[in-house]
């Protein structure tokens, strides 16, 4: 199977984030990492390839720093990478990001496209499903298991409140992958070495611009949430903190 994995670079989970001067986005001088669900999507693609043969291609969009995500994927076993490189990609909404991806892979015949189920920065949870519609493919979301069968694939969707569901679907298809579907592998030293010689195709913003439209969403303002709740902050040496907490548990929460 020929599988495309859409990946995104996001700020590290515990990175302290600061607003930019216009209050519309964060300052870019933070540490980045791969969006966690995308790492699971890559792992699943590698496992499918190991089982059924084929090719795993990884794609991302963003400035030069985003290439790190592709390098890591190549080191883990992806065959080649596509980097939609440029600052202009950062401000695209899910609709346009999916359009840019669709435009840059239109001449390839993928059987499957995987994305993580959502990103840790925007958290829109849309790009994969939008891409499916643009490609005219079937899709399924929040996937916990994938098996190939005679007519296509059989996937396990996670529903709410502990429920699951199996769905049979034809190929080609887009799947959004849930974290925890598998156990992530680490890149090996030899993998890291080999990655240096694997193809990395670069696509500039100008090359896909013609396929994009205006953004349909605009972030007017980004800000720190206004607190609606009164929070008591308890500080001090651990022993004192423990005593104060027990006092609150007894006199305010009434559980002791």
């Amino acid at each position, binding site marked *: 199977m020929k599988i495309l994995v859409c990946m995104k670079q996001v700020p590290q989970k515990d990175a302290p984030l600061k607003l930019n001067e216009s209050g519309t986005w964060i300052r870019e001088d933070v540490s980045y990492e791969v969006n966690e669900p995308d790492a699971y999507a890559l792992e699943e693609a590698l496992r499918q390839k190991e089982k059924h043969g084929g090719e795993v291609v990884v794609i991302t969009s963003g400035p030069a720093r985003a290439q790190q995500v592709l390098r890591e994927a190549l080191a883990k076993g992806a065959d080649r990478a596509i980097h939609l490189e440029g600052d202009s990609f950062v401000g695209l909404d899910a609709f346009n990001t999916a359009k840019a991806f669709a435009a840059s892979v239109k001449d390839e015949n993928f059987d499957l496209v995987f994305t993580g189920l959502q990103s840790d920065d925007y958290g829109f949870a849309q790009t994969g499903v939008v891409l499916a519609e643009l490609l005219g493919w079937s899709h399924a979301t929040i996937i916990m298991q994938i098996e190939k069968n005679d007519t296509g694939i059989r996937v396990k969707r996670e529903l709410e409140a*502990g429920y699951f*569901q199996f769905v049979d679907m034809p190929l080609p298809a887009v799947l959004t992958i849930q974290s925890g579907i598998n156990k992530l592998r680490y890149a090996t030293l030899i993998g890291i070495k080999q990655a240096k010689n694997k193809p990395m195709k670069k696509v500039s913003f100008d090359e896909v611009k013609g396929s994009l439209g*205006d953004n349909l969403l605009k972030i007017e303002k980004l800000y720190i949430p206004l607190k609606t*709740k009164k929070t008591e902050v308890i500080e001090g040496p*651990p022993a004192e903190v*423990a005593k104060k907490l027990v006092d609150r548990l007894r006199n305010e929460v009434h559980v002791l």
Partner: protein
Amino acid sequence: MADTILVVVEQREGKLNRVSWETLAGAQALAAETGWVLEAAVVGSGVGDVAAEVAAKKVSKVYDIESSKLEPYTPDGFVAALKSFIEEKKPKLVLMPHTYQVRDFVPKLATALHRSLISDAIGYKYEGGKLLFTRQMFQGKFVADVSFTGDAPYFATFQSGAYRGDKVEDGGASARVETVNVAIADGVIRNKPEAPFKEAKQAVDLTQAEIIVSVGRGIKEQKNIELAQQLATALGGEIAASRPICDSGWLPMDRQVGSSGQTVAPKLYLALGISGAIQHVVGMKGAHSIIAINKDSEAPIFEIADIAVVGNLFDIVPPLIEEVKKAKGT
């Protein structure tokens, strides 16, 4: 034609998903503020009862969008049905609850109509004729006011808990229900879903627990779970966790709290090393008291905590266990 808000309520196997009331309550507030007409729709096969239930609320009209091909739910079927309906009715705004089902088909629906969706909003603002939706970003570290820049219809979904479902207003008399039979051509629906099932019997019903001690990534290693367990035992409560802990197999899946796990409302929710990502918070924000211990002073969990302890849980929990034991005389 008057500007219309269309709320698409969710039904599963012919029963209304109660989270739909929250979206309807939000839509009622928005309708009152803007003067826009509020209508609702339900999509399915033989779901007239759900339509009638919604018609008792304060709405102008309810559409019962019917086809035998709409049961079971498929994204292809729901998009086909709603696309033609929305093209004909031209609502200004389409609102839905941000459920897994909605996540599965609404981005496709909006794309099919060359429109966009503001997903997972926690509220709206209507300022000087401009409609904004507020949503969390960066896992709740920030919130953003987001506007639509293109043409209507606009699509937005509300996060569970954004509005209070019990605040939804009843109508004076039942609204009119109009049945809309949609034709879905053969071959449109490609996916073949099977019936939903539960993996294993849930051994633990966290929804009944009065006290929950919950662990997140800050617990660092599997062997440290024991420390949290000791605190839970001392307090007479249950241990729970955020998703990554269960994904790693450190605690079983039935101990997971959040959108993909259980939704709890205990007297005390003690969060150890939990950052407070949205997916976790929706499962526990209804707790009466939330105590959070986290070394990151900017962790979003502190936004909803009643008591915040900024510090290393490994320093604080051991003396806390001792103090709790002392207090209980055990």
